């Protein structure tokens, strides 16, 4: 994953100043990204493809899943300040319009789209300014997909850089500011929004 980040950072869309700072940090000291903890500290969040096996901690509640990457902030010595934790979790749950009967439900009981939003909320709570989303809409029904796209758009406008990996051409054409096509581990083409046709993308993908 580390190589991927470095290969792509200079092309991250919508480089708001905040994002650029982090990218410089990442680019300037690539050795510091040895593991996901380092990436988290550098302000990079990751949404895995396999939501249930790599994203969520299924036995835990929505609240505990949202604050998983930001426990530092709620630490009062060795203890967790559950009051402020709860407040922040509620805040994100409302801000991202996560539909759940309560913040204390088991995450496993939520729908795919709401689970995905919970993972996004986790990284926002960890104050990530770069989100790497690996197939963010896989296994999510159409209605929820649109919601995820809207959310991504809002995040971009709020200064979060999003690096999305996707094999769905239409969603790339619709929402990406820049598209990089990879084939056999190498970047074969780069396009701006509205530039390429599906045929262009396919051609670069098999190049």
């Amino acid at each position, binding site marked *: 994953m580390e190589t991927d980040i470095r290969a792509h950072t200079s092309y991250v869309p919508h480089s708001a100043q905040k994002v650029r700072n982090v990218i410089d940090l990442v680019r300037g000291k690539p050795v510091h990204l040895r593991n*996901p903890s380092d990436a988290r500290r550098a302000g990079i969040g990751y949404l895995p493809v396999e939501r249930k096996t790599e994203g969520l*901690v299924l036995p835990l509640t929505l609240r505990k899943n949202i604050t998983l990457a930001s426990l530092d902030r709620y630490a009062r010595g060795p203890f967790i300040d559950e009051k402020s934790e709860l407040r922040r979790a509620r805040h994100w749950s409302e801000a991202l319009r996560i539909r759940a*009967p309560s913040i204390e439900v*088991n995450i496993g009981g939520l*729908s795919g789209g709401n689970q995905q939003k919970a993972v996004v909320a986790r990284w926002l709570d960890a104050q990530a300014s770069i989100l790497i989303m690996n197939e963010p809409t896989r296994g999510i029904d159409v*209605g929820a997909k649109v919601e995820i796209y809207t959310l991504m758009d809002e995040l971009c406008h709020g200064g979060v850089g999003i690096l999305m990996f996707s094999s769905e051409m239409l969603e790339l054409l619709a929402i990406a500011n820049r598209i990089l096509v990879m084939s056999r581990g190498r970047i074969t083409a780069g396009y701006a929004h509205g530039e390429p046709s599906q045929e262009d993308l396919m051609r670069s993908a098999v190049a």
Partner: protein
Amino acid sequence: MTERTDAIDDQASPPAKEAPKARLRRLAAKEAVALLVALALLMFVFSVTSPYFLNVPNMLNIGRSVAIMGISAAGVTIGLIGGVFDLSIAAVADLAAVISSIAFLNLGVPPVLAMVVGLCVGLLCGLGNGRLVTGLRINPIIGTLATAGIYRGIAFLLTSGQSHAISSEGFRWLGRSRPLGIPSALIMMLIVMAVAHVILRYMRFGRQTYAIGGNPIASRLAGINVDRQRLYLFMLVSFCASLSGLVLMSKLGTIIPNASAGTELDVIASAILGGTALSGGAGTIQGTLVGVLILGTLRNGLVINNVNAYWQEIASGVALIIAVAIDRLRSGGYR
């Protein structure tokens, strides 16, 4: 939970989603009640079958034997919640007691300090287990089975397989004194369990333990240092085990290099019986306390009813199978 319900769920009727959770909660509540009923039933049966069962001295006796199991089980519970499985607890308990007794008997270390030495042995054993599993990526069950052999071998070597009496009063307060008429071991267990409960419920360490046990991959991707947490958990499990070994030695007034051998079955069974998920991510200390009481009562009742000691071993095995079967039922259809 299936993706197909998304559309319905997303549009309206959030209460519909409460159903699985309410069901789970009801199930959990039912199970807690069932466990308490099982305990009451056991006590009832044994009071009928033996006149020696239901009286204060015997209850305190149960309390004391339960205490030694419970101290270990508190650590094992936290370990299992974090997905750390340790089969070496009995060997660690015995090795800690042996080295502590050597420090006292042969090296003239004062009793309290000798106990600290024993606890340090526990921490070191846990460090060894943890390094083995997290460093060499060895399966924890096999890894700790191997270290159990090593630790037990060292305990035998150091004592030449002999038992030694320890007559010092300074060594006996831990397992034999009775402040306010309550066996000190029982008090020790309650303290250990209270601390374990606070760790699990209120501390960051506890939260991370539930997280890495529930899903180590997701926890790692969320920036939690899973290996380090596992290492700490191994050390914590071994620390509790060594404390239980010291209390047992103190209670017996003798150092026996295999005094705890075989007890890991009961300890692990009691944690699982009490609701700790074998797959990690779930469990409570209160549950383990009830689990420990059930197994302790069972053992004591069998002894009091003059049941052959070999049958007790069989009972332990059966109890473990029942506990694991309940665990399967609990998580059935969940993953």
